[in-house]
Structure formats: C-alpha cells, structure tokens
C-alpha cells in the first residue's frame, strides 16, 4: 500500500514542497544575479554548513519538546576558545576538541537546569544567554581574537574538488546523524519523550536522561558548528554569534519540527537550512537592508509554526459539524 503510493506520499510531504520552493528560489537567483559564480556558490555552501550542523542539534532538542536560546552565545564561546587556543599555537587536534568541550559544558549546564529543576527550557536558556553575554566581557583579549593563525583558517578555506571542506564535513555529519536517527533506540526515545512525557515514563524511558543526552549531543554539534563558522573568518569575536539561535530555530521550524515536541525530522531541517541560507543570500543580492531579515525571520517562524501546529483534520471536522454535515 505504502510502496504503491510511495511517489505520491513523497510529493504530499512538507519537505517536498519546501525543497521545490528552495530550488525555485535557487534557480531564480542563479539566473538573475551572479550568485551562480564559483565564489558565490562556495560562500553559500559555507553558510549552509554551520547552519545545518547547529540546526541538527536544535532539531534534536525540539523533538524532545525543549529548545536552547543560548545556542548562539554558546557557539560564540566555543569558537572564541578554539581561536584562543589556536593563537596559542595549538594544533587542530587540540582546538577542535576544545570547541566541542566548551559546547558540551555550556549546553550541559543548560540541560541540567532544564532536567533537574524542571525549569521551562526557553526561560532557562534565556537566562543563560545573558550569563554568557556577561562572560564575554570577562574573556581575555576582550572577547575577540585578531589575526588568527594560518593553521586555524586552513579548515575554513580548504576545498575538496571545488567544494568547501566545511560543507563536506557538515553533509557527512548530517548523513551520520540521519543513520543514527533511523537505526538507534535512542532516537525513538527522543520522539517518545517529546510526544508524550508521561507515556514515555510508563514505557520505561527516563525522560530526564534522554533530554540531558539530547543537550549533550547538541553541545557537540554546537562545538563543530563553531569550528565550521569561525575557521572561515580572519577574526573571531565571541559576541558576534549573539542572536544566531533565531537562525537555527527558523531552519528547524521551517523544516517541520513541532514546538510542542514529538515531531520533526532531520531531512526537513536540512532543507530548512538550505532555505534559510538561500533567503539571506537572496536578500543581499536584491539589495534589501539588513533590517528586513529580522522581520522576515519572525514572519517565517510564525507561518512555519502555524502550518505545523494547525490540525487541519480537526479544522475540517469542526467545519463539518458547524455546517451540520
């Protein structure tokens, strides 16, 4: 049955519609501006790379019914520490683990507050975001690293047959997490906890442990994303990624993850990341001011969330009862 209508089912999904729309915008941009130049495409791929990796972390949290507003500032801290260590002469096998460790620690603190003290995730992470902003002012070198050494930016500027290495890493990581989500029991637990908290407890799942692990995994992904973002730059500034969490939230909710938890998928999020990065490119190429991106972000989040949350079946039933049908 399912196999028979397989093609039709795919066409009806949200991912398909979003993908087609993204491709449409892509080709319009490609043909009307010089977005299609090699440099343009490469910098687009670099944008997608870190958005994709961090959004995967955000999606995992969304699936469990949680979120992390401090993701932007955590990413800034992770990137700063990586650059700081690199400037001190550390090799890649030191500064990359440092970034990941910083991500894990700060995301872990968030997770502990959410899980242990049952504080709503958004409020907890909002508070932590401010704590991070305060930490920025206490960092050595004033919170920014200038003239980062060559071996730090090697990762960001390297090309694999014309494709930026950071994009290859991001896609590889995406495929790995896709397999992980498909085949492990842990992934099912994430959906169980987000879908029905109490039912998950009754099914013998520890929601606390599951959510905490989701935060830790998200921390690892933030660490990697901070490397993918900051190695493409000449100067690393801790507070420059403040506000970036909205980007990841946009990519996630556009991809169909439910803000109430229990629903969402990595494929949707990946398309959402491509979509978001493309949209910011489009706004630059068509000469919109930076201000528009905030307004667009808000509208897109609202529309995406509305599309996910409105139960069309229920609306239909209501209409039918209203008209006596």
């Amino acid at each position, binding site marked *: 049955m399912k196999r028979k209508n397989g093609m039709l089912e795919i066409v009806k999904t949200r991912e398909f519609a979003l993908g087609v729309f993204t491709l449409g915008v892509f080709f319009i941009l490609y043909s009307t501006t010089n977005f299609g130049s090699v440099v343009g495409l490469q910098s687009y791929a670099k944008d997608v790379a870190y958005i994709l990796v961090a959004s995967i972390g955000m999606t995992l949290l969304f699936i469990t019914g949680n979120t992390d507003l401090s993701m932007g500032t955590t990413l800034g801290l992770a990137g700063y520490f990586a650059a700081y260590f690199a400037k001190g002469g550390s090799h890649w096998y030191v500064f990359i683990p440092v970034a990941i460790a910083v991500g894990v620690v700060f995301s872990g603190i968030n997770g502990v507050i959410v899980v242990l003290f049952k504080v709503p995730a958004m409020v907890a992470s909002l508070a932590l975001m401010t704590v991070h902003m305060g930490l920025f002012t206490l960092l050595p070198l004033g919170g920014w690293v200038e003239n980062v050494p060559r071996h730090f930016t090697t990762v960001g500027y390297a090309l694999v047959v014309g494709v930026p290495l950071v994009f290859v890493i991001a896609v590889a990581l995406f495929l790995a997490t896709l397999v992980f989500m498909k085949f492990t029991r842990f992934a099912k637990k994430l959906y169980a906890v987000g879908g029905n908290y109490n039912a998950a407890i009754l099914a013998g799942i520890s929601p606390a442990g599951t959510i905490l692990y989701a935060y830790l995994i998200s921390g690892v992904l933030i660490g990697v994303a901070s490397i993918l973002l900051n190695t493409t730059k000449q100067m690393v500034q801790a507070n420059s990624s403040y506000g970036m969490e909205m980007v990841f939230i946009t990519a996630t909710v556009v991809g169909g993850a439910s*803000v109430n938890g229990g629903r969402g998928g990595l494929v949707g999020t990946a398309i959402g990341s491509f979509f978001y990065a493309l949209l910011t490119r489009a706004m630059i190429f068509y000469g919109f001011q930076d201000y528009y991106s905030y307004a667009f972000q808000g509208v897109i989040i609202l529309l995406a969330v509305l599309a996910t949350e409105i139960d069309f079946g229920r609306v239909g039933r209501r209409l039918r009862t209203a008209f006596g049908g």
Partner: protein
Amino acid sequence: MSNDIVKAVKSRINYQAFLLLTLIVLLFVFNRLTDGVIMKWNVIFRQTEIVMEVGLIALAMTLVIATGGIDLSVGYTMALSAIMMGLIYEKTENIVLAAAVCLLTGMLCGALNGLIIAKTDIPPLVTTLATFSLYTGISKLVAGSNIFSKFPDGMTFLITHRLFGVIPYQFVLFLVLAVTFALAFNRTRYGRYLRGMGFNEQTVRFSGVNIGLIKFNIYVLAGLMSSIAAIVYLCRLPAAKPDIGININLETITAVVFGGTSIIGGIASVWGTVLSILILGVLRKGLSLIGLGGDKYNFILGIILVVCLIGFSILNGQISLGRRKGAD
C-alpha cells in the same frame, strides 16, 4: 494538592518579607560602598526612575506569567511604540496624536500576540519569540539609522519636575498602577481566573470561562503597558531608537520571577514584583555608582534569574511535578 498550594502561598508571604529585608540590606550595603550617596533623600527616590519602564511592563508581565504564558516581545513593542511616537511627532508636530499612535501601536502588537496565542495551540513562548523578531525588524525598518529626538520642549518634565521635588512622577504612576493591578489580581473574579488558568487551564475552561478572550486581553494589556513605558522612557530620555528595547525582556522576566511569581504560572504576586523592581533599582544604581554598570549588571541579572528559577523549582517541587510545559 490544595495543601501544597496553601503552603506555597504562605511561603510566598514569607518570601516577600525576605525581599523587603534584601532591599533594606542592599540599601545599607551600597550606602556603605558609595560613602552615603544612596541614602540621601533626593537619591533614594530618584534611583527608582531608571527601572520604572521595566516596572510598568513587569506589572503586566506578572499577570501574563500568572496565566502560565510569557511575553518575550515586550522590549521591542516598547521600542516600536517609541519610534512610532517620534515619527508621528516629527511629521505632524501634534504630541497628543503622537502619544495616541504610540499607545495604539503597543496595543496592536499585543493584539497580534494575543490573537495567535488565543486562537492556536502555539505556545506563548514561541509566538512571542517570533513576534519579538518581527517587531525588531519593523522597528529597525521604520527607524533606519534615524534617532527620533525631536519632541516638544516640555517633554523632559519627568527629569525637571518631581513631586515635592524628590519623588519622580513615574514612581507615583507605578505605585498607583501597582495598587490597581494588585486589587484586580487579588480581589476580583478576573484575577482568580488568571491564577486558575496558570494552575489548570482545562478546569477554568470547563467552568464556563472564555479563556481565549482572557488570553487576548492579557496580551493586549502587556502591549499597552509597554507603550506606556515607551512614553515614560521618552519623557525621561527623548530619543527614540530601536535598541532601547534590548534588555527590557530579560529585566522584566527577572523582576517578575525574582518577585516570587512561578514561571509555570498559577502562583503570582504583584507586590513581590513591586519589591523586586525596587531591589533592581537599588542594584542598578548602586552597581553603576561603584563602576559596575552595563554588561556587568546584565550578567548579575542573568545569574539572579537562573538562581531564582532553580530555587523556586526546588521550593515548588511538589506542585510543578508532572506539570511541565509540553507534557500536557
């Protein structure tokens, strides 16, 4: 369960005594640190005026959080209202019209939040996070790189004039509104509905209360208070620009939570919010006097918020169990 609630309410009354004690201790500590500047007659009241915008919004936010909701968009609602006021005055030179547009903007922003929250199942956190982004964009779009600072000469009367020469008028306004809010919240049926919604929305709905309308009203109220705060701000510092809304959200939520209102709703105290606003005023003034303003103050706010969230969740452990957001 009901015993737990009674216990929690009693602990809140003790908590307000604790807040009052904190306020007095802080006053003496900063008085010592600043060589007696804080306790001077003209300073002890004047330090309230830097937190009055936050205070006005926090009053409405207390009610919003009491229903189990939250409004993250208040900061930029305030900024947008202020910018609209500046824009309209620049165009028409009519301050009454400008103030009316300012209030209308705030109410419209609140109405959009309220409409989405009342009519759909989207959590208030996500709705207002999205509208936060939207209002940020709109206010930056309207203002561009302009700073609207053209206002009538009498605009800054809140700095030049004070009641009996010492008490800021916005503090009087704050106290009057605080009494109104406290009476409405503690003594009327409407206030009981708000609290009831925080504890169990379904029960209130099944009691025949139109909770959609209440939600809508409460977010419009939050928007309106944000625009009143915008006017108060402009009377103090007549320069409307987008980034005046930057720290308002955090400061407001910290004030409300520090005041003893449970972040998951149900338990709320207007007087607790008033006390915590006064404490934040002393803290901000005192810290800036000893050279720890700006980011350091925000850092301390963040830590206060985290500590309060953890502390209250331990205190309310009994009540909050199994009532997590997203679980129901």
